């Protein structure tokens, strides 16, 4: 018997979509642990987002304090550990986002808890399936510590559905908040009106074959036509054509949209590990022997310079005909 503490990220008064995936994982885990899901919101604005979390979790704990204004692993991890102890949690989960991946292992370290990262499936109370070797194999692991920490992959869990009646929100004060000398300096944000790469329904990615950053403009037109997020292969981000956080792959973002366009991408293992879970994959490449065609559902052997504008025109035509 134990509860499941789900660390939830929020923006303004709303949970992030990544948190909804975590909560649906947490429901499965709570059944296996014979306890309840407790959503945990930490930081400035946590109380305001509490009611949104209560639509999905029977219990919500919010923690706000002056020292917790900005996320720092040093200050947030002790809060998560404290709440986990106070709430009798036997499992703590945080979605495998940049924050979750930074925070969760630190929480595990504080609690001497065993951890399973990037999990794709829960197969028992303490057994989890997770990708290894850049997604080339799946490992089933058993974690034998009294408290378990996990980071579920957003792309593997459907967003949690709303509860029939909202849960209860309680607020708790943190113990001493000590950043240990660490300091948040600034965030150089990549502003975009497009959906977030990790949970976009459609993703348009370009690779080395796009040659320059300016050439990505035509892919952005395609993306905007489809309400898609932009992605890229490591070759393109390393060459500085597009921002680093567009990178899809084992070392970048893991995505699983309904529709994935890989344009001028060869299909290195590194990249495939980040997008193989997409439902429909379209590859456009002038070289028919590229490995990307082995994972693509539909392939067009053509130069992007010709194929992408044509694709935009055809989709516009299709939309106009509806």
């Amino acid at each position, binding site marked *: 018997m134990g509860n499941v503490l789900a660390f939830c990220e929020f923006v303004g008064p709303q949970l992030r979509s990544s948190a909804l995936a975590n909560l649906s994982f947490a429901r499965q885990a709570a059944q296996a642990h014979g306890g309840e899901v407790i959503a945990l919101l930490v930081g400035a604005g946590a109380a305001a987002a509490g009611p949104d979390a209560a639509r999905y979790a029977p219990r919500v704990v919010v923690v706000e304090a002056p020292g917790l204004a900005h996320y720092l692993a040093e200050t947030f991890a002790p809060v998560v550990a404290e709440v986990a102890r106070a709430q009798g949690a036997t499992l703590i989960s945080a979605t495998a986002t940049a924050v979750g991946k930074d925070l969760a292992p630190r929480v595990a370290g504080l609690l001497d808890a065993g951890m399973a990262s990037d999990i794709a499936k829960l197969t028992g109370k303490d057994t989890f399936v997770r990708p290894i070797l850049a997604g*080339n194999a799946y490992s089933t692991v058993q974690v034998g510590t009294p408290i378990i920490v996990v980071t579920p992959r957003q792309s593997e869990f459907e967003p949690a559905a709303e509860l029939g009646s909202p849960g209860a929100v309680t607020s708790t004060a943190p113990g001493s908040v000590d950043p240990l000398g660490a300091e948040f300096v600034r965030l150089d944000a990549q502003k975009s009106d497009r959906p977030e790469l990790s949970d976009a329904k459609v993703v348009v990615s370009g690779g080395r074959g796009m040659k320059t950053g300016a050439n990505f403009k035509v892919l952005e037109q395609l993306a905007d036509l489809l309400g898609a997020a932009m992605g890229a292969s*490591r070759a393109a981000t390393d060459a500085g054509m597009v921002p680093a956080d567009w990178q899809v792959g084992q070392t970048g973002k893991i995505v699983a949209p309904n529709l994935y366009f890989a344009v001028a991408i060869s299909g290195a293992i590194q990249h495939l590990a980040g997008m193989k879970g997409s439902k429909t994959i379209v590859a456009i490449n002038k070289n028919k022997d590229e490995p990307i065609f082995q994972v693509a559902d539909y392939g*067009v052997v053509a130069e992007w310079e010709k194929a992408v504008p044509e694709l935009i025109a*055809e989709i516009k035509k299709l939309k106009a005909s509806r």
Partner: protein
Amino acid sequence: MKILVPVKRVPDPTQKAKVKDGHIDLTGATWIVNTFDEYAIETALRLVENGADNTRLPGGEIVVVSLGPNDAAKELRTCLAMGADRAIHVVASDAEIDSLAVVKVLSAIVAAEKPDVVIMGKQAIDGDANQVGQMLAAKLGWPQATFAASIELAADKASFTVGREVDGGVEYKKVPLHSVITVDLRIVAPRAVKNGVTPESHNYSGEGARLPSLKGIMAAKKKPMTQAKLADHGVAPTPAIKELSVALPPPRAAGQIVPDVPTLVKKLAEEAKVL
């Protein structure tokens, strides 16, 4: 500045994954230093040298440590050949350790070696766990800067400003000495590491970590490598995390090459129903 760099040996990722008796078959595998750990050594070297003339700065020292079987000594030699000064080999088989055990050993080594900073890869490219750096920082009560894409040593040499790739941009985080920094792939970009000595105009190759030179390989043979056992650090060979089985993912159904873009759009709309 004394830097401790924990490294792991991993199977060469260009080998195809095979499963035998429910686990990855590593018979006859070739091994390499985990790529992100190589980047950590490159980062450490850039912090303790003048890149313009390749001279080591006074007081600069790099100690590498690895937990692994007897053979792992080979990968530690590679690290010494790259330019690390000293190696510590804690002999253990993979079945005897998990991330918690590694962290226990590393925290004991930090206590004994008293480095100014620990720099390591963000994750090993076999297990892909991304746990040890953060767990070690927690265990030591040290701050952490994970997924470092850039590092700048402050003029007073008492802190680092670390550029971290996060969702939606780059976060800059300042951490004092006695921190754990885990590095991401862009840390090896030509000007990603600034130590205040290497001229701002100096460009490193940016092609990944440096390769050992012939001179480096010769020198590495004489560099000290000490061996220890798990028990020396009070760690029992009884991991709490066990791998029950491994399976290869089901292959994707064969796709189709379509003759032209209009056919593609028609199929996406009518067959796949995604437009």
